[in-house]
């Protein structure tokens, strides 16, 4: 199926990296659910799915740990596909696997009470409130430093439009013309793949690729969500058989590399309070860790603390599903323990992680682009005040 799908040496490093394995005593772990199940399924076609395979969050930390390059998490996603589910759960999962359609009717996410219970949604997990994107009057044709495409993912489009607007203001301030892509609400395919629907995922991704609207003049596709970032850059070529028309760069990395020194120097004027930083599991896998911390420090945050959490438990729509509520809570509790009731801002570049972590820790969570843009505006206001004060 994939390169290296039979390369497992049974070292168990994947097991040491799996956050669900530690929190859920029933969960068999990545080695058993991935390469071992895959080998058995090749020998015994029609093998039924293992219990608890659906408890995998698709964080991919197992895969990132594997020294033999086994696509552990992706084998598990295919394993999930062989589960038997009730028609209602299938319907729920079909809807959650298409967040781009949800984004066209964002109010749906608020479904509560008995209907939510009936379709198997967790009524305890916090849901997003609609905050749609406001399209700019007319996109700028070109900027002094070229054109970047801002990948406006389904979540941002429907529930955190302000993050895309903030990122666009910053990119413009740094000298770039910004194009919002894709034109319509479309998904990279991550949600469907994570839920064990790889074929659907590929179809969704193919439609997105077609509608992406990234042409030759575009220097980079800047992403706002860590999961979409990894899906486009790493998974599209390897698992979706899709080409990506320009280098894919997460917003934080782009900011660190491209924002001019004068921009950073202008930020020191506004106090930040305590800033926590969470690098999502998928960001750890597709990028690594340290860029958000560097961004917070570079932007002059007073005190920066890293959340020592592998995967927070949100995992896209995972925490919205009633059967995963318990594991999602246990995964998030570690963050709550570390924060210990302190107040501050949490920087995280994934909307669902932001929701879950703010519910677990009580912190105010926001996208780094929004935070940076506010600091820029706060600094300008502060500077304005001090110049005014000097004049009088």
């Amino acid at each position, binding site marked *: 199926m994939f390169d290296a799908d039979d390369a497992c040496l049974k070292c168990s490093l994947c097991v*040491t990296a799996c956050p669900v394995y530690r929190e859920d005593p029933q969960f068999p772990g990545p080695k058993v659910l991935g390469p071992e199940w895959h080998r058995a399924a090749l020998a015994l076609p029609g093998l039924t799915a293992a219990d608890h395979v659906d408890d995998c969050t698709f964080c991919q930390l197992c895969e990132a740990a594997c*020294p*033999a*390059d086994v696509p552990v998490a992706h084998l598990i996603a295919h394993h999930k596909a062989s589960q038997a589910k009730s028609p209602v759960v299938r319907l729920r999962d079909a809807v959650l696997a298409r967040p781009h359609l949800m984004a066209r009717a964002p109010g749906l996410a608020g479904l509560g009470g008995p209907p939510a219970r009936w379709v198997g949604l967790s009524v305890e997990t916090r849901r997003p409130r609609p905050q749609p994107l406001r399209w700019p009057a007319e996109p700028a044709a070109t900027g002094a430093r070229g054109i970047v495409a801002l990948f406006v993912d389904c979540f941002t489009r429907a529930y955190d439009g302000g993050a895309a607007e903030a990122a666009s203001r910053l990119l413009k301030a740094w000298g770039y013309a910004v194009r919002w892509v894709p034109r319509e609400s479309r998904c990279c395919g991550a949600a469907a793949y994570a839920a064990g629907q790889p074929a659907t995922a590929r179809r969704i991704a193919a439609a997105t690729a077609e509608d992406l609207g990234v042409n030759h003049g575009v220097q980079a596709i800047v992403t706002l969500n860590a999961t979409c970032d990894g899906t486009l850059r*790493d998974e599209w070529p390897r698992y979706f058989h899709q080409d990506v028309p320009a280098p894919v760069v997460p917003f934080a990395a782009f900011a660190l590399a491209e924002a001019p020194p004068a921009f950073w120097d202008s930020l020191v004027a506004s106090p930040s309070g305590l800033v926590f930083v969470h690098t999502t599991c998928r960001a750890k896998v*597709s*990028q690594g860790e*340290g860029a958000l911390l560097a961004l917070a420090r570079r932007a002059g945050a007073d005190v920066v603390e890293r959340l020592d959490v592998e995967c927070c438990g949100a995992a896209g729509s995972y925490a919205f599903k009633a059967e995963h509520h318990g594991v999602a809570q246990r995964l998030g509790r570690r963050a709550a323990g570390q924060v210990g009731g302190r107040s501050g801002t949490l920087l995280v570049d994934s909307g669902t992680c932001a929701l879950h972590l703010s519910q677990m820790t009580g912190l105010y969570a926001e996208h780094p682009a929004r935070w940076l843009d506010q600091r820029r505006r706060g600094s300008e206001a502060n500077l304005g005040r001090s110049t005014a004060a000097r004049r009088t």
Partner: protein
Amino acid sequence: MTPGAVTVVGRGPAGLFAATLLAAAGLSVHVVSSSSGTLPLWSGRFNFRDWDQGMVVDNPWDWWMEHGEQHFVGGTARARWRRLWSIWRAVGQQLGMDSAIPERNRWTVTPLGRRRPVFWTPPWELALDRAPVAVAVVGLEGLLDFEPELVADGFQGPGAVRTLRLPWPPDWHRGWNTVRWGAFLDTGSGADWLEQQLVRALGRGPAGELVVLPQVLGLSRTDVLHQRLERRLDRLVREVGLAPPGLGGMRLEARWTAWLLSSGVQMHHGRVRAIRDAGGITLTDGRPVGEGPVILATGGILGGGVCLSADGTGVDAIHRRLLGQLAEGDDPARALQWGLVLGDGGVAGRQTAGCDPDVHGDGGAVCLWTAAEAVDRVVPGLVDRLSRIGTVEVAVLDVSVRGPQTHKEAQRV
């Protein structure tokens, strides 16, 4: 000229140690890796030199004085090692694992009840100078990796040895391995369960009794549990490392990585495709990552890593891609020796030729030594100038000089 930034490939112990030295010296550091290193397979101890042709090495300080020549350590061996172990002690302290650096090898017991030499260990791990006056070896029902009766064989001597076995905890089932045990004992109910069981099973016991457990005392709350047990039982409690994966190595890796990140080191995940002339590397997905000279600490026992050929080229061992070439003027023959120079950087860890930590029992030492060599090539004199690791001052060790010892004098313990 000192570079402002350095890229280290590999997040095994050699890569992390190189990153630690560079970050402590104030350089900007990028660590790139395509997978976990071997640390989660370790028990957490750092071996110095355990074996020489099948014989136990009693005093590794002296062994290195005698055999340093073949590893380019030469006559400076003792001073160099003193420096490196002093730094390592400070790293341990910074990571909440304060353990003294011993003057000679101590011994531990394997799950099969054999004695084996051991040098530096974290505070929770068993390491002895002499047989204890009394030992209680405590097993866990269902944890087949650790049979107390077998382990007890390793303590036979003048002291009293007794064996005990704790029953299954409430939620236990057959599939529990050490990671699961660790996660269970990290929870409040798990810690309460263990304490109650130990109090009940051990009773008062003889004075000075040492309690030996399999290595399962939690992953993220080990220190709290360890201290709690020692206080409550009023005895020393020590763990014996089990077959991989190892909780000790997992604890060490988690603390070390968290500290490096908090110190500003950037971690990047991905496989290296090429070393860039301009500095840093390129990943297989095309991303340019890192800056400055490159140190390769790519290990290799698990199938990944970089193959260094005699013609001085470095090749990615999984995908067979060319990574880089020896620097101009380097003797290709040296590609098979320690501290090879690739570009402006160096090579560290077990992939350096002549290292065979599994046979020699010198894994920890190999990582310290080779990482220090590689770092010194990038910034000459860095290791000797380093005065602190994070908030901890590097206090130079005082290891008394003994007479030279040949391996013939070493005997099996």
